[in-house]
């Protein structure tokens, strides 16, 4: 079925479209124009996705809370983001009197630009990667690191205690969890032997008995995926790690003093970060654009990529609908005392997996080590943080 030319063309439709468009230009300009088209596509597609996600998030949260959610603007409320966009564009842009105007202005721009750059190395389909870099993963993390600076800039320049506290929290949290994020990804790099994301996807795009070789289906991959997911949630400031904007304590965190379009840019940046980090998680652990079963390989690869990204966004929304948030010190303790040691252990297990060769033994050994470590460390964590279930007595 995969050989069917229609599906092959459908799979490659965006690549063909780009080549066709670029073909009108002189040869010297073609590589440049190709990249430019890719950039334009990314800059158009992901904000569009952002707009859709905001309305889906609100509707999803509504359903979780037994409400309907927005349904007034357009059919099923789908035009709600348009209304929101117009609203934020037409709102007054307020800069606090004592704010540092230049930094205050630059912060949202830096955030959005750096987050956009992360998309450059994500393979969104077969042959659909903007820049196939040798050190693509490193590039991604380098761009992620730069977003922290914008958060700090926003918090500091607003001259507001809540903003500053929010920014400090955000940066501390992002740095802590970035370590975990990196180390979880290193496990994949160890097995694949490459920092290039298309190669990582290619390594997972194989099937035995109809099932794919995704890394999440291995013990170390599952553990790595879980730690990655935890770190990604913290990195994107999503619930239950949304302390930087914990409205019950900090009003709105580092973007308290932002209004109008600048606030919209922050909002956009946060959602884009969510997309890009989900995209990276998909690429590393969920097989990127590869199909979940071998008989489904005729479905276009970009469909699988975006489907998986949206699925992880749904999990983000689901968690937000369920969980309360942690406290700052608990968050840090959790990062450094639980997630990080576990990730390091997972690295060792990954090495073990690599050197034990094929066979059932490595499955048993790695699973046992990870599960035992999880149970023991989980209990130690609960014990050291002094919490657990209780029983209650009654008076008649």
């Amino acid at each position: 079925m995969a050989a069917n030319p229609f599906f092959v063309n459908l799979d490659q439709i965006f690549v063909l479209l780009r080549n066709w468009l670029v073909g009108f230009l002189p040869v010297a300009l073609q590589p440049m124009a190709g990249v430019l088209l890719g950039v334009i596509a990314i800059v158009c597609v992901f904000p569009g996705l952002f707009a859709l996600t905001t309305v889906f998030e609100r509707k999803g949260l509504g359903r979780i809370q037994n409400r309907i959610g927005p349904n007034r603007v357009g059919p099923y409320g789908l035009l709600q983001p348009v209304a929101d966009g117009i609203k934020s564009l037409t709102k007054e842009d307020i800069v606090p009197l004592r704010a540092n105007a230049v930094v205050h202005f630059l912060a949202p721009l830096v955030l959005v630009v750096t987050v956009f750059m992360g998309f450059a190395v994500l393979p969104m389909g077969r042959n659909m990667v903007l820049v196939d870099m040798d050190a693509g993963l490193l590039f991604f993390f380098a761009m992620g690191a730069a977003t922290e600076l914008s958060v700090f800039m926003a918090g500091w320049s607003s001259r507001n205690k809540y903003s500053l506290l929010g920014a400090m929290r955000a940066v501390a949290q992002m740095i802590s969890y970035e370590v975990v994020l990196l180390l979880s990804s290193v496990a994949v790099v160890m097995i694949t032997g490459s920092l290039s994301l298309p190669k990582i996807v290619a390594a997972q795009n194989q099937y035995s008995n109809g099932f794919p070789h995704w890394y999440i289906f291995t013990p170390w991959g599952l553990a790595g995926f879980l730690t990655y997911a935890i770190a990604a949630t913290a990195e994107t400031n999503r619930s239950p790690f949304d302390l930087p904007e914990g409205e019950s304590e900090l009003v709105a965190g580092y973007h308290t003093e932002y209004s109008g379009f600048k606030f919209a840019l922050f909002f956009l940046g946060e959602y884009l970060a969510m997309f890009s980090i989900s995209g990276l998680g998909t690429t590393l652990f969920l097989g990127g654009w590869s199909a979940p079963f071998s008989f489904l390989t005729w479905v276009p690869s970009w469909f699988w990529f975006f489907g998986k990204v949206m699925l992880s966004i749904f999990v983000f929304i689901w968690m937000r609908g369920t969980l309360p948030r942690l406290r700052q010190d608990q968050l840090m303790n959790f990062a450094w005392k639980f997630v990080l040691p576990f990730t390091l252990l997972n690295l060792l297990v990954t090495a073990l997996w690599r050197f034990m060769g094929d066979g059932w033994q490595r499955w048993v050994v790695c699973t046992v080590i990870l599960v035992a470590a999880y149970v023991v460390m989980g209990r130690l964590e609960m014990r050291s943080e002094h919490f657990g279930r209780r029983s209650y007595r009654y008076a008649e």
Partner: protein
Amino acid sequence: MSVTDIKTERVAGWNRPPVIEPDGEGELLEVAMGPHHPSTHGVFRMDLALDGERVVRLKPVFGYLHRNHEKLGEGQSYLASMPYTDRLDYICSLTNNWAYALAVEKLVGQEVPERAEYIRVILAELTRVQNHASSIGFLIQEMGASGTPLMYAFKEREKILDLFESLTGSRMMCNYMRFGGCRVDVSAPWLDATRKVVAGLPVFVDEFEALLSSNEILMARCQGVGILRPELAINAGVSGPMLRASGVNYDVRKVDHYGIYDRFQFRVPLGDHGDIYDRYMVRILEMRESIKILEQALKDLPAGPIMDPKAKLRGFRPKPGEAYGRIEAPKGELGFYLISDGGPNPYRYRVRTPSLINLTILEDMCLGHNVADVVLIFGSVDIVLGEVDR
């Protein structure tokens, strides 16, 4: 910031957070939380002195919602104060009605028919369930749960409020009880609807608990935070679920035997630690006990009049004297103290509101904790500003 002296006070079995004494006032960060802050439940201000994120000093400032409730009560007839009691704790107007009616009934020596007593119990326990549900919802909301538990609580509360509306005419400002009985009789369809709602309540509490009680984040946030020692609680006059979460067995329903609570089988849940989690759990368990009372009361509801035929609605002049009527309101002991000089208006009208008195130990519970915990501790006290400021 250097903290010179960290004193840890340890009482056997109790883990009080260290009390920090700053060496210089100038190095502390002063934050005024409120009166316009998302998590102060209204217009309440906490002047915090922070060492980093740790609370060194907390000064509660209230009065922004002062409405002259007590003085108003002195200026008008006994009946005219009844609708104002609705506005004290606007989440549970029916228990406020009851406490006030109880005080006036004591003052004039009024009897209440049995059916009216049953109706009062049913309404008060429904009020307790909806108050506890929504107060837990608010607490978890302040923990940052984007409204899900709150919405579940409100969905259930809506059902109870619908019952209130179809009986008393208003969802929140019920103004239902009268001296010597109740205003309107319950109808058979109303009782059927109530039985249906009560039958659904255990399911709701189970769902609520499945969502929250064993959640690790909630446990980590709530356990060991905002500990209130029983000695301090008793000394400060704290009452209600707050006091029982600290392990003190004191429930006005059991102690005072007001109304007909003697006839019902129910237990009083007690906490052992006095922290936020205990307050949360005591509320959950009290909801379950309230459901038991409701089932019994709905089964045994007798026929008969709902108003004492001798009762006067207006124009009565109680003999000079005083009366204190108190009940176990959802938030604690609610008391109305009335002095009559023989005139048509009370000479003195005083309300002992649980919200205000439970709030007095806020600083003791918050010292040494983070700002984030202050918000939670404040939420776990379960106050309504209408009652605090009166």
